[in-house]
């Protein structure tokens, strides 16, 4: 076992883990943050995407021990507790960008990262290309693309967008 200390959703966390423990296992099993999902074993589906230092990372593809000192944001930490939803969460709800909800946390976290890199006015084609690493079997992507475009616009000027851009 080995110790790792990091920040998750703004809170300091220390855990003793088997060295082969993946970040997603640390989040789901040790911290009981089960909003981050596992959909595959080859880093294709993107259900496990979280933000590490503001950047999208597939948490199934990084060891927990590599995250020493890192700042991790999961779907549970995207909106302030008791505060309003994050604009991207709201956009997924408003645009019916989810059906079964399993890929959704990864989609939303990826979307926030797309906005950080590509800005607030996103063309459909850009969004579709940027979603290469996220698979959804339910929605046919149509409403996810709509949701991300709307969420990107709604994020203009919000705290998350500003923080991410820094």
């Amino acid at each position, binding site marked *: 076992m080995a110790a790792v200390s990091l920040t998750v959703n703004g809170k300091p966390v220390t855990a003793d883990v088997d060295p082969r423990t993946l970040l997603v296992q640390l989040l*789901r099993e040790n911290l009981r943050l089960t909003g981050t999902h596992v959909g595959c074993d080859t880093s294709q589906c993107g259900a496990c995407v979280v933000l590490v230092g503001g950047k999208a990372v597939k948490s199934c593809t990084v060891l927990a021990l590599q995250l020493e000192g890192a700042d991790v944001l999961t779907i549970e930490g995207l909106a302030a507790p008791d505060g309003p939803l994050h604009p991207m969460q709201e956009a997924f709800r408003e645009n019916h960008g989810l059906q079964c909800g*399993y890929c959704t946390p990864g989609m939303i976290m990826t979307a926030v990262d797309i906005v950080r890199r590509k800005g607030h006015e996103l063309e459909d084609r850009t969004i579709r290309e940027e979603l*290469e690493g996220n698979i959804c079997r*339910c929605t046919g992507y149509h409403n996810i693309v709509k949701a991300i475009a709307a969420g990107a616009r709604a994020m203009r000027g919000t705290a998350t967008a500003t923080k991410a851009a820094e």
Partner: protein
Amino acid sequence: MTATGIGAAVRRKEDHRFITGKGHFTDDINRPGQAYAYFVRSPHAHATIKSVDAKAASKMPGVVAIFTGAEVAADKISGHICGWTVHSKDGSPMKAGPHPALAHGKVRYVGDEVAVVIADSYAQAKDAAEKVVVNYGVLPAVVDPKAAAKPGAPQLHDIAPNNTVFNWHLGDKAATDAAFASAAHVTKLDLVNNRVVPSAIEPRAAIGEYDSGTDSFTLYTTSQNPHAARLVLSAFAGVAPENKLRVIAPDIGGGFGSKIFIYAEETVCLWAAKKVGRPLKWTAERSESFLVDAHGRDHVTHAELALDASGKITGLRVHTIANLGAYPSLFWSSVPTYLYGPLMSGQYDIPSIYVEVDAVYTNTAPVDAVRGAGRPEATFVVERLVELAARETGRDPAAFRRANFITTFPHQTPVLFCYDAGDYGASLDKALALADYKGFAKRKRESAHHGKLRGIGFSTYIEACGLAPSQAVGSLGAGVGLWESAEVRVNPTGSVEVLTGSNTHGQGHETTFAQLVSQRLGIPIETVSIVHGDTDKVQFGMGTYGSRSGAVGMSAIVKALDKIEAKAKKVAAHLLEAAEGDIEFKDGKFGVAGTDKSVAWGDVTLNAYIAHKFSGQELEPGLKEGAFWDPTNFTFPAGCHICEVEVDPETGNTEIVAWTAVDDFGVVVNPMIVEGQVHGGIAHGVGQALCERAVYDKDGELVTGSLMDYCMPRADHLPALKVETTVTKCPSNPLGIKGCGEAGAIAAPAAVINAVTDAIGTEAIAMPATPAAVWAALKKSGRSVPHAA
């Protein structure tokens, strides 16, 4: 229409938990003291099991127990069943071989469960499984369905000579042959319907738990139908008596058919939880999902269409070899038979049809229902044939279809179904306008101008949904009825819980079912809760598949609401001191006809429980009613999908540049959700048409065993989709609903391939039309340079 009633695009009640990471999927659940299961699977497609040596494995850290098929058999745990007995032409029942929960004596496909290793952690179980030594006697395998049926092929099951499960047929052979004998033109087509992997993004998972104090079991599982799981696990597998087994299906991350069935892992986790005295958890890795979740499709078909000189279709005959994999599965036999043959009339008035299906075992994963289940396969046959016939006889594909449409209803087809309502011309017209069909020639020229081959493809599909009238399916071999149940529990405060046997796994029942109740009772949608997925709460139900939850599940709720209203009127009559027959219920108020006297919903519900205003001997206190709804007919959603593609002749890459769908789903409860279902279905069908294919090598190894090898459609495989509806009310249920969940997957493959073949000018292309396949077809046809039309 009210703001939250039927027809309103109400935002989903269930979304909040999913967008905040607070959903409860099976793998999110942990039980105190739980151990973990990992399954040792056969690496061989066909072998005898000579011995299993678990000595070294059992000494590995954390190992609790290791069980093999011998222990399962010793405890008399039976295997999986097929719930539908299909009969061959000669009247003999299908040859269903045994499917033990853990393989015993023999393995029949790669992935077959041989042993289960139980340990304190998942990693320990997986590590120890590496040390289990299985001594196999490898046998020759057969994966090709045509080869499997030939004499001398490796035999999978003693009960099934030549690996033949059944030789089934439907329709009038003599009449159909006569139509072909007198035909002016015959169109012939050989096609392969590619094997697909269902690939819900949530892998299957199970937690078995045994309470020795009450001698009772609980199973948490990723199921589209927990009630059927409970019935099968008790009555057939013999794991636990039905009254001692609770099955909970929490949030389910998509199913697409694969989570209807009962598999080895759920059975073994439940059984072994008692053996080891601890809750037992198993979660599939994606590579396991590829190996053992039931696959779909996998047909080899020869089909022919007979036309008279005027272009009227006079006959259709089809011969299909269906690959059913290595073992029976729950709906297995019904998919290539009763969910396939009866769809062969499509939207067309065809006087004679004859369908033959030879079903065979091969050393591959079992093949069962995947989104559409039989109907995509039928639609692909019919719509490819019709398109090809139009091309061969120089007719416009839209006009050719229209000239052969059924136009009067009810319409009895020659293959069992009686279509109750539809207007196929209306959906075609609307789709032609939305797709700007008239402008296609110009767009094709423009594409040619920059070196691209443009094509357009139609699919005017029909499906049979609302599964299904119990007596009718029983007469065809189904082992169960396909009704649905509902229980409406009205609380004293007037809020309502609806318990339903329909089991949502992404379809939005918590919203649409609440819309129905909100409108009917005139109460806010927030005060309506939909309860499902727990056999301790919902007494029994038949689950969600076959686009049945609206047409069947909601009809059961309507029936229960009728009873609620009748009972509430009795209570209101006492409160209003009026005759029961004079009570009217409207907008959430009970009034007395011809007066301004009324009493609110909440007053009636409260008084139903307080029971002071009426005699408890004359009228039972409380307000709770249940109902079972058995459909009177299948429902027949139909529509027109038009796909437009551009093919790059240099690379063979196909880009879908436009998609128009006009579907008739009858009455639409929530257009936002219906459109979402259509989008998802189209993507599923596009995946099958352009990129998805499960491939086994000749030894039965699954070559496409991960998402790196099996191509799921991504966002950039698809354009924005134009999705609209036309409406003919379904006369066979109280709400007029037909169902929408599978339409896209049924319509799409034919539309795509019709468009691709139109673009490249050759019919010689099989699904999936990958860039390599299209490029090769173009090379072979010698038509690699676009020509301005």
